[in-house]
């Protein structure tokens, strides 16, 4: 099977790349594990990582700066009950590894070194993307040329375009996880991203617009279907809409959210609150509510790490668990949480492939992958047509949530008034606030136009950033608080 071949290639490649140069083989790994697995340590893992990143940025018509970054290291974790000991080293060498192992296992005092025979075997893995190297997928001259074309395309759209900033970034990450249960898993993860942001100016008024995309592939992605150029056009379109925008209304009203990126609603309102750590600790507004209705009948929400090539997808998570499609809400009923291994074990549940970490220097936690709501049956025009007076929000900046109170916000960057079923004048960006456990109970229409975002999401939690995806169909929500300035 193709999956198996690719997978074993990844594991072999990761071992050659991360371990061989340091002379680390099966015997050495066993020695490190043995140092940790005293009788009070339930679980331990080693996470080896090598990553190369680059970024190129253009402003004022020129690519003026670029940078490359190389990072490698190993994180060592020991878990005893609810206690975690963690240490890491940015040198992959045996003495550093043994030191880190001693520091990590100190969490369980009375344990003593005992020889631990590890029968290692490779875990399952998916093949959602090629283990390609984005950095070498295009000549540097061509990367610069691509950004210059993006700039020209943006300027060509409208004479009011005064500034264009564009950036191109790529990375390749090779990871290898070695667990105390003998599982060894590896992944080679490419990721690319292109972003365009423009400033338009008219009669002394200035506005901006931005667009972009990417995924787990190489730079060729931006050259096909004129993707890069379409981001430039989209950024200008948004900026010009905002130039015409008038103050947004303030207060509670009907809100129609467009498809795709507005799915950040689900990420903030639902996703974070369903992460296993918050629920194990009882700090989430969703804690203890499995099986309860938390959304309207038409709402089914999943977190799916298995979508080929998507920014939030992973062949295996950072604990070596293959990713999966996890149903969070099924027809309005809360069905599941997002789990890493530790929280799954402590809650007596199965891991869901959501154990993620920013790097070897960070501890894994339950994190989202691609979170979206399945399509319903309503044509989007009918949804808009059904609203007498409300807000139609199609693009958003960032969002945030207070897990404990359940209150979340997300800020519109492109929105319109709806009057008598018609899309009216554009209004300035406004923050929308709601309550996670309640908001989806107010969903009264679900569109048939499910779309995923273009590959721009980055989620932050406890200071750790990971790439994620979101998506949804057009939704009508009856009663959200819109934070404009017009009473």
């Amino acid at each position, binding site marked *: 099977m193709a999956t198996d071949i690719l997978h074993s290639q990844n594991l072999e490649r990761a071992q050659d790349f991360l371990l061989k140069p340091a002379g680390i083989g099966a015997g050495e790994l066993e020695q490190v594990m043995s140092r940790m697995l005293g009788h009070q340590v339930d679980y331990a893992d080693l996470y080896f990582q090598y990553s190369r990143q680059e970024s190129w940025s253009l402003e004022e018509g020129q690519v003026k700066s670029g940078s*490359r970054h190389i990072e490698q290291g190993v994180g060592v974790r020991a878990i005893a009950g609810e206690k975690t000991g963690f240490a890491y080293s940015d040198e992959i060498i045996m003495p550093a590894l043994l030191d880190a192992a001693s520091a990590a296992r*100190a969490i369980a005092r009375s344990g003593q070194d005992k020889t631990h025979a590890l029968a290692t075997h490779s875990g399952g893995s998916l093949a959602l993307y090629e283990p390609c190297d984005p950095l070498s997928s295009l000549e540097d001259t061509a990367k610069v040329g691509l950004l210059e074309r993006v700039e020209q395309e943006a300027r060509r759209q409208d004479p009011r375009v005064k500034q264009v900033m564009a950036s191109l970034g790529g990375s390749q990450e090779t990871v290898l996880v070695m667990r105390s249960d003998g599982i060894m898993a590896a992944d080679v993860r490419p990721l690319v991203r292109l972003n365009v942001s423009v400033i338009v100016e008219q009669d002394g008024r200035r506005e901006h617009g931005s667009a972009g995309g990417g995924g787990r592939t190489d730079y060729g992605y931006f050259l096909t279907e004129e993707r890069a150029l379409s981001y430039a056009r989209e950024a200008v379109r948004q900026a010009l809409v905002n130039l015409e925008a008038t103050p947004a209304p*303030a207060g509670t009203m009907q809100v129609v959210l467009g498809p795709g990126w507005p799915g950040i609603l689900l990420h903030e309102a639902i996703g974070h609150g369903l992460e296993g750590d918050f629920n194990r600790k009882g700090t989430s507004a969703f804690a203890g509510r499995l099986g309860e209705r938390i959304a309207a009948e038409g709402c089914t929400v999943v977190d799916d790490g298995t979508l080929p090539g998507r920014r939030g997808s992973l062949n295996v998570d950072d604990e070596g668990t293959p990713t999966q499609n996890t149903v969070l809400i099924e027809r309005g009923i809360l069905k599941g949480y997002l789990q890493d291994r530790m929280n799954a074990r402590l809650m007596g549940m199965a891991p869901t492939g959501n154990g993620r970490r920013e790097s070897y220097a960070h501890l894994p936690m339950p994190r989202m992958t691609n979170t979206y709501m399945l399509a319903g049956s309503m044509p989007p025009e009918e949804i808009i047509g059904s609203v007498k007076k409300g807000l139609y929000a199609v693009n958003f900046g960032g969002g*945030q949530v*207070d897990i404990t109170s359940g*209150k979340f916000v997300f800020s519109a960057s492109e929105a319109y008034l709806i009057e008598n079923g018609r899309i009216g004048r554009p209004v300035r960006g406004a923050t929308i606030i709601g309550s996670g456990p309640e908001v989806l109970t107010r969903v009264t229409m679900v569109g048939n136009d499910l779309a995923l975002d273009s590959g721009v999401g980055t989620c932050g939690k406890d200071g750790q950033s990971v790439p994620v995806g979101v998506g949804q169909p057009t939704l009508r929500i009856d009663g959200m608080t819109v934070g404009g300035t017009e009473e």
Partner: protein
Amino acid sequence: MDAITAESKGTPSLQDLASQALDLAKRQGATAAEVNSGLGKGLSVTVRRGEVETVEHHRDKSLSVTVFFGDRSGSASTSDFRPEALSEAVRAACAIARHTALDPFNGLADPAHLARNIPDLDLYHPWALTVDGAIELARRCEDAAFAADRRIRNSEGATVTAHEGEDVYATSAGFMGTVRASHHGVSCAVLGEDDEGHMQRDYDYASVRDARDLPDVEVIGRLAAERAARRLGARQIKTCQVPVLYEAPVARSLLSHLVSAVSGPSLYRRSSFLIDSVDTELFPNMVHLYEEPHRKKGNGSAPFDGEGVETKYRDLVTEGVLRRYCLDSYSARKLKLVTTANAGGVHNLMIRPGADDLQGLLRQMGRGLFVTELIGFGINTVTGDYSRGAAGFWVEDGELAYPVEEITIASNLRDMYRGIVGIGNDVDMRHNICTGSLLIDRMTVAGS
């Protein structure tokens, strides 16, 4: 804990590494180069519900290099200090410089502005914190939170951290500056629960250069508990326009929006609502803002900025008038101005406090909204439009009446700056930007 040294015997110092990288750049044909190298180590321990939750040992190092070939530049960084990795990083930076555009504004800082003497700002106080010592402090902190209020029934834990490090900045023009600094902290986040099962979370923390300056950990725990408990029973209010009082820790964000709007890149990109605003009255007369980079033990103190430029006391706003921008060398050259030693940001931006404490400001406001927490990113720096999620308290007759949540507050930053009618003397010194509570005359509160 002994002083930071390179990890193993025979490993070169940060200064040596910087020199080596500069040499490599020169040999590759670079006409100029700059290097940042850093090394740090730390310990972070979290106790939750009385039990140890995590013990994390941190040890980080990095080196970044920017090379100039005439007017072209390229950068690279690595966490690997071995000679071959260093060479690879320098080569990568040089390779990039071959493809970047000619930019006459590129280059190192003007030698005339560089720091000549590097004052000791008393920033380096390694804390010989042991894992056991940290556990003990964290336990006492969290225990105090649980003991403070019976409604505190859950916790995200108390965390004690110690960190120390050394950073070197060096250039091919001969500048070599070293800063050793430490920072330590104690934080506690707890949850209150009311009889209906509704929960609220809040926290308190301390952040210092010297562990001897930490407050009693019990005080941090108690404050976290009081803050969480007083939020219980929060409700939405009706949409209205009222005065808004920002508590000091959240008022800081208003000044950080100012800094970002008057920073060089936002200005030359024309992506700021404060273009051409020097010498204009942005604030009422009573507002004075200044940078105090040489404050001893200051959280934002630095003897030189990210380009080696000498930092010194500098006014930003006096009598409500913006006196300058926040510039590094590159943006200064583009704007035909002179660097203000703000490469890497501001250093201890302070507000001159008013006479009133928080109670005084509440009385001055009379009726309105007291904001203690903000969420979301609804700030448009191009237009100044502002709309963020908020939580806090409804205020009647200068007293907290009841907790409020699920509301937004909106206005435009220009109007908000002009609308400051009170500055508290309750200055929050835990950050690089320090202000007291700020009272704004009128904002739109969106609720039910």
